Structure formats: structure tokens, C-alpha cells
């Protein structure tokens, strides 16, 4: 039987929920398990209630699952809120000296603060409880110690090892059989544990991004922070701009000058960027914009997930211009589609948007190492210096792509304009030139369309039911399909991670045999369902929508589609 376990770490902001959760994910990964971990946090610096869920499995899981096997609670609230979600036979690990009045089954009381103080610092209570939680499943303390030493630098590595050992030993002595399902290490290649944001940051550096300007906004702030930390070593300039308007316009200027450039934001910041997006469109400047969605409108739910910006992103900015829109399904795709975004942008001289959401941006997944030899760099058609007469930045061509030159080179002047312009880039109001220039720009989409991958099909294309989604829901959809199949339901998954230009033909083809289609989205209006209907003429049987700021779980999808007639 496949070993599969769900941990939850809960507590206040500032209690070390995030680091304990991440260490748990790293430890299980080092033990050879596939892991997936998500973060649920409030928009505050201290206090409140946060939790971090870690799922570890011998199967390749890419979603969070219910119920919780082991709850590691840093405060009373975590016990009270989440004990209902703990499976029968599960365990609740907590500091019984500070959390009183807890009764029931599966309780594992650890004097965490006391043991942490003995190990050298009471702030390490979280590490004590982590050690205790892993002690329950029969984890290998040496592996945990190694993970802790890598994570904490200097002295604090050893101190944390001591703290973890104290929790571990306490459980071995006091609660050897409280949790019956002991797990074993499994053989696997060493995997990386990273978030969607981490993968996008690495993708940007690998793709040769040299310039980033951004304004911090949850959930994409860590991309800006990561690139800032690496800018010296990797030849980058990262500008913390005064606002998102400035950020995107700086990016357009840097890209015009000749470097790969990007920004990252969330929906609210992207609202401020849309005019700049149009500027990139008309000046044919290649830029990459990462938009990590969160629940809107307005400030919405600042730290929570949603897929509410799809139609906005497809149409953002006035007027019409070519763009590409990618929406990674997994942490791996966050890397590869960021690389692809830079290539598409350069090749078609247009803005490319990469959409994630809070769930994918801040969830950790264990992935096989990234094969960097697969990264290709395509800067597109560059000017060879052999123009008849003056260089024309926006020369008419069959493909619509005009050879690019960069300002600063003798004999070439690069002229472009946010006004409609002629081939040389000078502003014009001539009707004929306008028509030709619009056609030239829009023609680029014929080429770009061919580069868009068809949607992922998980299944045979012959199933009676089809679950359809985009972006971060892929892992949950696949697992929901697995659960339905076990119940004898005939079901496929069709999932889009490259959304524009829309792959209409492969989508229509993949959907052609399904009798019932269920479009599953984290929004209130069914935006992908609209897009599919518009582009293929096919209406969904039902939309399964969730817009409470929380991600789908496989079991939640199963319940919802069964209610809508999936059988």
C-alpha cells in the first residue's frame, strides 16, 4: 500500500509555523517521499492564526489532502480549530505545560518550551514539537539532524538538533504507540523543495533576465526578494520602484534598451500596470509580467488564493495588441514557463504574462532536479545592420516581426512611439499606415499561436466525464480523477497551462467525446468556461467554483462534481 501522510503545523504568526512546516517538508523529502505543502496565513505580522500543511506520499502527489494525520499545534487555538480535521487514530502534538484543558484521544503532550530552554533557546519550541511529530512516525533522527544543520547556520544548527532530539526522545519514551502507522524511508533521487515563486525566480535567472522592477505585493514578493539577493552574483539590476506604474514602465525602458526584463505583482498592482502593458504592446517591447493572483477586487483577501483575473489579464489595457498568457500548473512548470515567457516575448516582441495564484506561489513541492541543459535562449530576430537607408524599428514583414536593434550602436537609431507610428517609429495619424501597422502587429499571433502547447490530457480522451481546469488546480484535479476512477467513474482531466493564444483546436478535439464536462475554477463566474465557450463553441455541463480564498482539495472536487451529476 502506498504510504501517505498529512501533517499540519498551526500557530500564531511569529511562532515559527512556516519554518517548522518547511523543515518537515524537507525532512520527508530527504526520506524519499514526494511532498506538497501549502501555507494558510493572515495579513498580519504577529498573532492571528496560520497553518502549514505538509503532505508526504510515496506517490507523486501535487495537492493537499484531507484529513490530517498529525497535528502539531503551537497554541490552543490550533488545537481547537483543527482537531476536528484530525483522522481517528491520528495524533495532536502540543505543549501540555502551556496549553491546558485539552482532552480526547491521540494527545501527545510535550513540554516544548522547557525542552527548548534546556537546548539553549526557548524560541526553539517549534523545533522541539517538530522533532516530536516526526518521532511519532518512526522518523530517522540523523536525517532530521542533517536537514536542521543545512537549514540553520552556525551554532543554531546544533542547538536546533538538540531541541529536535529532545522532542523526539520525549515521544519515544512517553508515547511510543500513540500513533500506530510507522513509516519507512523510501529510495528516491534527491529532490528539491521549492515554491512556485522560487521556481519562477530560478527560471528568470536561467532565462537571462537582467532587469526587474517591482513593488512588493503578496503573493509574489519573494520573487523580487530572491532576485535582489542574487543580483550581485548574477548580473542583475533589481529596482524597488515607487509604485507599480513606475515598475512596468521601467521594465519597458530596460527591454527597449536590449535586456530581458520583468516585473512581478498581484492583481491590484497589475491594475496599475495595464497602461504600461499597452505601451509594451504598441512599441513591440518584449516584457514578462508575473501576476500572482489573490482574492479581489480591491484589497480583497490579501493573503488568499483566487483565479479571478483570467479574463482581466486576457483583455488588460485599451486597444488591441498581441500578448501571450501562460499559467503554470505545477512548481516545475513555474520554472519552465517562465523561461518560455522570455523566449516568446523576445521572439514576438510582445508582453507575456505568467499567471499563478497565492496557492501555487507559496506552496512547496518536492521536484526532481531541474535539467538546465533544457533551457534554450531565443532572443528573436535581431537587426543585421544591413538596412537600405535608415533602420526601421517597425518594418513591415510577412511574419509581423521586425528585426530588433538596441539603442547605442553606431549607425543605428532606434525610434519607437506609444502613438501609432510608421515603420521608422515616427508618430503618424495616417489611416493607411495605421491599418498596416495594426495588421503587422496582430500578424505576430499567427506565429505565436503555433508555440502554444495543447492542454494537458490526463486520461484516454474517451471518458464519459471530463474535469477541466487551469493553473494551480492541476494536482488536485488529477487526484480527484484518480479517486473517481476508483469508484468506477469514467473520467479524464483536461488542463490548460498555456492559455493565450488559446489552443482552441486541441481543446475542442480533446473535449469531443466527453458527455459531461465540469470546469473547476477558483472564481465566482467561471472565466475559463467562458473562454472555452467563446473559442470552441462548447458549453460546460457545470462550473465548479470556489471563491472563499482557499484552494481546492481532491476530495472537495469529488464531492462537488458528484453533486453536479458526474457519474
Amino acid at each position, binding site marked *: 500500500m502506498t504510504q501517505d501522510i498529512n501533517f499540519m503545523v498551526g500557530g500564531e504568526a511569529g511562532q515559527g509555523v512556516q519554518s517548522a512546516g518547511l523543515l518537515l517538508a*524537507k525532512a520527508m523529502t*530527504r526520506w524519499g517521499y514526494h511532498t506538497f505543502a501549502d501555507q494558510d496565513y493572515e495579513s498580519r505580522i504577529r498573532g492571528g492564526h496560520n497553518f502549514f500543511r505538509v503532505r508526504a506520499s510515496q506517490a507523486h502527489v501535487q495537492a493537499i489532502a484531507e484529513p490530517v494525520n498529525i497535528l502539531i499545534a503551537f497554541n490552543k487555538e490550533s488545537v481547537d480549530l483543527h482537531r476536528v480535521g484530525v483522522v481517528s487514530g491520528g495524533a495532536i502534538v502540543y505543549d501540555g505545560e502551556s496549553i491546558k484543558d485539552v482532552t480526547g484521544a491521540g494527545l501527545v503532550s510535550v513540554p516544548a518550551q522547557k525542552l527548548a530552554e534546556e537546548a539553549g533557546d526557548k524560541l526553539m519550541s517549534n523545533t522541539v514539537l517538530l522533532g516530536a511529530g516526526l518521532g511519532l512516525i518512526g522518523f530517522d533522527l540523523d536525517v532530521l539532524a542533517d536537514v536542521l544543520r543545512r537549514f540553520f547556520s552556525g551554532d543554531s544548527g546544533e542547538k536546533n538538533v538538540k531541541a529536535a532530539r529532545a522532542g523526539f526522545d520525549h515521544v519515544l519514551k512517553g508515547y511510543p504507540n500513540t500513533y500506530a502507522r510507522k513509516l519507512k524511508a523510501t529510495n528516491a533521487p*534527491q529532490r*528539491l*523543495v521549492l515554491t512556485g515563486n522560487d521556481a519562477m525566480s*530560478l527560471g528568470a*535567472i*536561467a*532565462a*537571462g533576465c*537582467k*532587469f526587474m*522592477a517591482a513593488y512588493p505585493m503578496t503573493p509574489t514578493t519573494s520573487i523580487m526578494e530572491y532576485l535582489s539577493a*542574487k*543580483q*550581485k552574483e*548574477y*548580473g*542583475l*539590476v533589481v*529596482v524597488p*520602484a*515607487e*509604485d507599480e*506604474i*513606475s515598475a512596468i*514602465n*521601467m521594465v*519597458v*525602458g*530596460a527591454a*527597449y*534598451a*536590449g*535586456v530581458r526584463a520583468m516585473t512581478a505583482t498581484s492583481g491590484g498592482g497589475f491594475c496599475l500596470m495595464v*497602461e*504600461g502593458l499597452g*505601451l509594451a504592446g504598441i*512599441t513591440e517591447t518584449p516584457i514578462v509580467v508575473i501576476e500572482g493572483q489573490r482574492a479581489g477586487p480591491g484589497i480583497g483577501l490579501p493573503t488568499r488564493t483566487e483565479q479571478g483575473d483570467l479574463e482581466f489579464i486576457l483583455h488588460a489595457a485599451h486597444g488591441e495588441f498581441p500578448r501571450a498568457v501562460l499559467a503554470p500548473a505545477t512548481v516545475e512548470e513555474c520554472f519552465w514557463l517562465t523561461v518560455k515567457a522570455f523566449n516568446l516575448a523576445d521572439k514576438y516582441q510582445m508582453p507575456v504574462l505568467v499567471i499563478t495564484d497565492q496557492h501555487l506561489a507559496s506552496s512547496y513541492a518536492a521536484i526532481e*532536479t*531541474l535539467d*538546465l541543459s533544457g*533551457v534554450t*535562449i531565443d532572443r528573436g530576430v535581431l537587426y543585421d545592420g544591413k538596412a537600405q537607408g535608415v533602420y526601421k524599428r517597425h518594418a513591415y514583414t510577412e511574419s509581423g516581426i521586425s528585426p530588433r536593434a*538596441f*539603442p*547605442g*550602436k*553606431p549607425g*543605428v*537609431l*532606434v*525610434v*519607437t*512611439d*506609444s*502613438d501609432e507610428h510608421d515603420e521608422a*517609429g*515616427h*508618430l503618424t495619424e495616417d489611416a493607411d499606415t495605421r491599418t498596416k501597422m495594426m495588421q503587422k502587429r496582430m500578424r505576430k499571433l499567427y506565429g505565436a499561436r503555433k508555440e502554444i502547447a495543447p492542454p494537458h490530457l490526463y486520461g484516454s480522451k474517451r471518458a464519459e466525464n471530463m474535469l477541466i481546469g487551469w493553473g494551480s488546480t492541476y494536482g488536485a484535479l488529477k487526484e480527484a480523477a484518480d479517486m473517481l476512477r476508483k469508484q468506477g467513474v469514467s473520467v479524464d482531466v483536461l488542463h490548460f497551462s498555456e492559455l493565450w493564444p488559446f489552443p482552441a483546436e486541441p481543446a475542442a478535439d480533446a473535449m469531443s467525446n466527453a458527455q459531461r464536462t465540469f470546469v473547476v475554477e477558483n472564481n465566482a463566474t467561471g472565466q475559463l468556461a467562458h473562454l472555452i465557450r467563446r473559442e470552441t463553441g462548447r458549453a460546460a455541463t457545470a462550473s465548479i467554483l470556489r471563491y472563499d480564498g482557499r484552494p481546492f482539495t481532491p476530495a472537495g472536487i469529488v464531492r462537488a462534481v458528484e453533486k453536479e451529476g458526474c457519474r
Partner: protein
Amino acid sequence: MTLTVKDYTGLTPAWCPGCGNFGILGALRRALVEMGLEPHQVLLVSDIGQAGKLPHYAGGNVFNSLHGRAVPPALGAKLANPQLNVIITAGDGGAYGEGANHFIHAARRNHDVTYLVHDNQVYGLTKGQTSPTSEAGFVTKTTPDGAPLPINPLLLALAVGGSFVARGFAGDIEHLTTLIKQGIQHRGFSLIDILQPCVSFNHKNTFAWYRQRVYKLDAAGYNTGDRSRAIAAVQEWGDRIPLGVFFTEQRPTYEDGFAALRAGSLVDQSIEPGRVEKLLSEFM
């Protein structure tokens, strides 16, 4: 080959006859030629409106931006390729209204660019509405009872750390040429606010009105290194209006702060995906 103003000739200007912009264009051309800058070494980034058309008439590399947004793309281009001489042109609406935030922060961070603001105290291309620098009481179609207090761009620049703060006059090309040259030579953010009479929509602040009032700071033995004195000097307005450099200081530019730029222009730096390998181990 000797550089002449013919090297800085673009399209034929579509400005009103007698427009103050002609003086600014003339001074910019002369400054670039006298400095020996080849057109390919110059990037002109502009706002929109009548001032925004200047780059098309001047030559050089041109990036004609959005309203209020001339500054950020200019900063981005300069950071990507610091060898470019980046000059921004905008009107008072774009510079001090729509784009005031960018102006403030570009001055504060001290990006090495030169900002020429065509300040005619009125919106011209939309045909005569109030601007952020319209004098108090100035009657326009959108301020029938008179405009509120204007912004003082030079005082604002001083307040936010502008390292080169100057005022020119479109009616004195010779003096303006000198200012533009000084601005380009200055390492850091240079603001040159240029009094530019609008012959169509501002019938108060005319060439004649200015000629009766302007005087030059440098003739009066003015010290450009004294910020406190500059703060007083930029507030003189009315019967006498000072022209020239009010304040200048040397301090590190924003570009100086980036290690990546010590290896030269980012545009010339190679892309090596394999170098990311080293970063992967951080995630184990």
C-alpha cells in the same frame, strides 16, 4: 566628420508658429553638438503632448512614452545601458501632475538622467486647461474661477534630494544651451525647468512678460553649493524671476549602487543558464 545641428534634424515640427518649444529644440540641438555627442549615443525619452513630440524633431534614439510616464522608461533604459546619454522631455502636466511621483523618486534616488520640463503653465494640446504650475487665479476652461496655488517644481526638487536644480527660459537659447550641457554633464538627476511661453493658451506668461522679469543667477555671484540659499532663491517669482543653476551637488548616482553595472552595460552581458545549477542546492 564634424558634428553639426543637421545631425539632429528629424521631422518638421507641427508646433504653433512662435511656440516656446522651438527655443528648447534649438538649445538641445546646440548642446548635443557642442558636447560632441553622436545621435546614437543619445536616447531621448518623452512624455506626450506638444513637448513630447520634440524627440521626433531632434533625432537620436527615441522612446516616446505615455502621459506622465516618461521618467520610468528612461530610468530603465539607463540602468540597462548606462553608456546612453538619457534625456527626458515632458510638459508641466506630465512632469508635475500625472508623473509627479516618478519625478520625486528619480530625484531622490539620483538616477543619472537629464530632465527637461517644458513649463508653459497650461495644457496646450488639450487646448487650454489648468496645469499644476498655472499661477494662482489663472482662469482657464477648467478653472473658470481661477486656479489654486501652483506647485514649485524647483522647491520640490530641492526637498527630495535633486542634485542639479536649474531653470531656463525658452526665449534665451544661448543660456538654455549652457544649462542643458551642464545638466547632461552632471552625474546624477538633473532637473531643468524651462519657462516656455504658450502663444495659444497662456496670454499672461508671454515672451515679453518673461523678458521684463528674468535675470541670471550666475551674474550675481551666486553659490550653487548652498542648499539653504537655493531654497530661498527658487521662491523668488513675480517682478523678478531668476534663471540658472540654483543648486548642484556631487553624490553617488543610483546606477553607482549596482554591482552588476561595474561589468559594463547589462545589454552586453552574456546569458548563461548553467550558472543556476549552483543555486539549486539551496533548495535541498
